[in-house]
């Protein structure tokens, strides 16, 4: 009878009187223990996550924000870093503004006492944060923003890049296009770039590098569109009239999406190949129905090209167990997975969660990732990670369009990064 009463009490109040008393006494005793007694067993490892939940970067941040707690929980199941430092995550919205990013980084370091900051979208925000983390000697794991300046011109030994940087990505496009030129017999192309420094610089690098890799391909026209262009019809008809074999686009963000939609509607993509469009898994999911098949895209960490690796299988399993079979971790979510696991491995290597020890352990380390075993370059902390180029096609295996395995070209990082460390160090900022 008494047992039945206890059960009823438990059901009604969620906890029995006896359990409550035992828990309270235990909690009180732990709280009264001196800090040094508890420190060895439960000092958490605090990580600040700086990602935009508003503004243009919010789209690419949604899945990392969903995925990070799962990865932390997975590591915490083993007790956390070194089996005794559970990971605590502190999310902050950078609003895609460098000064807000810098303020949030300061707040995380000073208020939440984080030992590491992960993020962010937008290279300008990442570089603003780099100044703060360098000053406070806190680790910075860059897994979305990929300007090569983060590891070169604005280098700090505390920043580590987990994706191919912009320079490596452009290089990968050249390697893949050169291969396609040889296979498909292409010999003339046009370029369309946004008329500002980034657009002009990307076009210049592509054209000059391609001239070395595949001199048989000739540039017949360079077109320039203004930043924020909403009507590409005149450019599209001009390109179609010139009948090139392929075109190279240096069009970023929303403008690229607008261009793609208009190019598809006007039939350009059926007549002219367009290699090198940045198509992360996020876009493959969101534009599953409308994305033109056959278009040649580039991305940084697609799950479908890495399912042979146990870590990718494991991540896919926990991700889909939580969010369902129709959702997939995008490139960014996968790179954040690698970032947290890289941190875990660095702690194990260093035997400590001390910032300086972790930094030294990560520098030049080879880590196990969802893209296989990858090594950090010692002179700039750039992970030797590949870029993936391929044709978008429907798949029997996946409910979303993916890069066709028959056309997929995986360009290793070390094939397209700055050739020598001397070159890297020449451009690196000297910090006091």
């Amino acid at each position: 009878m008494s047992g039945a009463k206890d059960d009823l009490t438990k059901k009604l109040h969620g906890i029995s009187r006896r359990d409550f008393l035992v828990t309270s006494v235990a909690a009180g005793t732990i709280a009264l223990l001196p800090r040094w007694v508890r420190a060895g067993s439960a000092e958490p490892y605090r990580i600040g996550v700086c990602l935009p939940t508003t503004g243009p970067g919010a789209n690419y941040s949604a899945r990392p924000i969903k995925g990070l707690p799962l990865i932390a929980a997975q590591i915490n199941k083993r007790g956390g870093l070194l089996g005794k430092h559970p990971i605590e995550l502190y999310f902050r919205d950078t609003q895609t503004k460098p000064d807000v990013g810098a303020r949030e980084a300061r707040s995380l370091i000073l208020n939440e006492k984080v030992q590491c900051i992960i993020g962010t979208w937008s290279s300008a925000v990442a570089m603003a944060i780099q100044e703060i983390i360098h000053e406070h000697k806190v680790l910075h794991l860059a897994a979305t923003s990929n300007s090569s300046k983060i590891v070169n011109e604005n280098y700090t030994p505390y920043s580590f890049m987990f994706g191919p940087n912009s320079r490596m990505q452009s290089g990968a496009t050249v390697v893949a296009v050169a291969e396609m030129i040889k296979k498909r017999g292409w010999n003339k192309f046009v370029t369309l770039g946004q008329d500002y420094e980034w657009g002009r610089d990307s076009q210049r690098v592509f054209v000059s590098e391609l001239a070395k890799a595949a001199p048989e391909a000739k540039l017949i026209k360079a077109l320039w569109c203004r930043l924020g262009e909403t009507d590409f019809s005149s450019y599209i008809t001009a390109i179609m009239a010139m009948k090139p074999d392929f075109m190279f686009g240096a069009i970023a963000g929303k403008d690229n999406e607008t261009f793609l939609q208009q190019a598809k509607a006007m039939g350009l993509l059926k007549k002219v190949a367009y290699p090198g469009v940045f198509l992360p898994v996020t876009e493959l999911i969101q534009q599953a129905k409308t994305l033109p098949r056959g278009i040649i895209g580039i991305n940084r960490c697609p799950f479908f090209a890495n399912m042979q690796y146990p870590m990718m299988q494991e991540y896919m399993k926990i991700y889909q167990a939580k969010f369902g079979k129709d959702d997939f971790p995008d490139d960014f979510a996968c790179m954040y997975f690698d970032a947290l696991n890289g941190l875990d491995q660095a702690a194990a290597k260093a035997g400590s969660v001390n910032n300086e020890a972790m930094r030294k352990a990560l520098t030049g380390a080879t880590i196990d990732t969802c893209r296989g075993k990858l090594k950090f370059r010692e002179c700039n902390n750039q992970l030797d990670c590949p870029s993936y180029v391929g044709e978008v096609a429907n798949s029997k295996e996946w409910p979303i369009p993916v890069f066709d395995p028959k056309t997929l070209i995986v360009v290793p990082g070390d094939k397209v990064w700055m050739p020598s460390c001397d070159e890297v160090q020449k451009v690196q900022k000297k910090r006091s």
Partner: protein
Amino acid sequence: MNNATKRGFWLRLYQTYGLTGPVSLVLGVAFLLVPLLPGEFPTIVAAEILILGLFAMSFNLIYGYMGQITFGHAAFFGVGAYSTALLMRALQSPVGQVGYLDFFLSLLIAMPVSALCALVVGYFCVRLTGIYFALLSLAFGELLYYLVFSWYSFTKGDDGIQGIMPPGIFSEVVNYYYLVLIVVAGCTVLLWRITNSPFGYTLRMIRDNQRRAVFLGINVRLVMLANFVLAGAFAGVAGALWGPFQRSVSPFLLGWVQSGMAVFMSLIGGAGFLTGPLVGSAIYTFLNAYITQFTVYWPLTIGLIILFLVLYLPGGVLSLLDKRLSPLKHHDYLPEDAAPEAARSGESS
């Protein structure tokens, strides 16, 4: 002993200087004591409040005193920030250090550069009023934004400029904070002098009745241009302080979102008061710094605050205080010798 003496120091201060007196004193003492709070973060937030407060006060010269709204004011803030950042970069040693003299020179350069920029923009803007003034100022602001955004070889484009470290003792948060406090306090005194000078009253007249000002022989365009240049110069000072404080500058500082921030701050604090934007900055920046620790819905929060203010407190937070105190201002217990002074000060109204 009359009633005024009984009510003491604060009432006298209010009667003599309007709400600017007691608010400045309270804020001044509070800002002096901020570094005593535990941790560095409150000092960082307070520095941000002061710098953005100065920026909002400079905006309020155009909005609150001249009666024109501008959505391009951040351009001068950004120009100030970039002037300082570029000069500091040019004067830095190979390891990124800058001397004290070079640092102060870099800060000083911002004011004339921003003023010059405001002179060019203002020359065109003051020919218009109302919505046309607002649109033209926005257009110029965006033009300057795109210039900075696109000019990679000079401004580093959309990446911005990083590594703007103040020298020696000013790299410590507390020391830099006191430098900011001194500069902002000095600028506030200057702004008070300006707004309470005949020039300031001319501005109010232009705001209230431009046609009458013309009939009285006032060169309205010239006065408006002079005020526009002054506002740009003060925004430049705020911008100059911002770069070394954040260690970096980016083109976002010149964008319309940054301009909107000054509008919000003025509305929250009260555009009818010299220190209104500073109070607005304190509320806005404090909430932005601390609310984001609990929720990522910051735009929703600030949206609700603005909605509430527009509906229930259109004169801003300080107007509520002023409404309660104003019956005391001209009451019979006002000392006779203070009466003319009080009538002369009377804020912007």
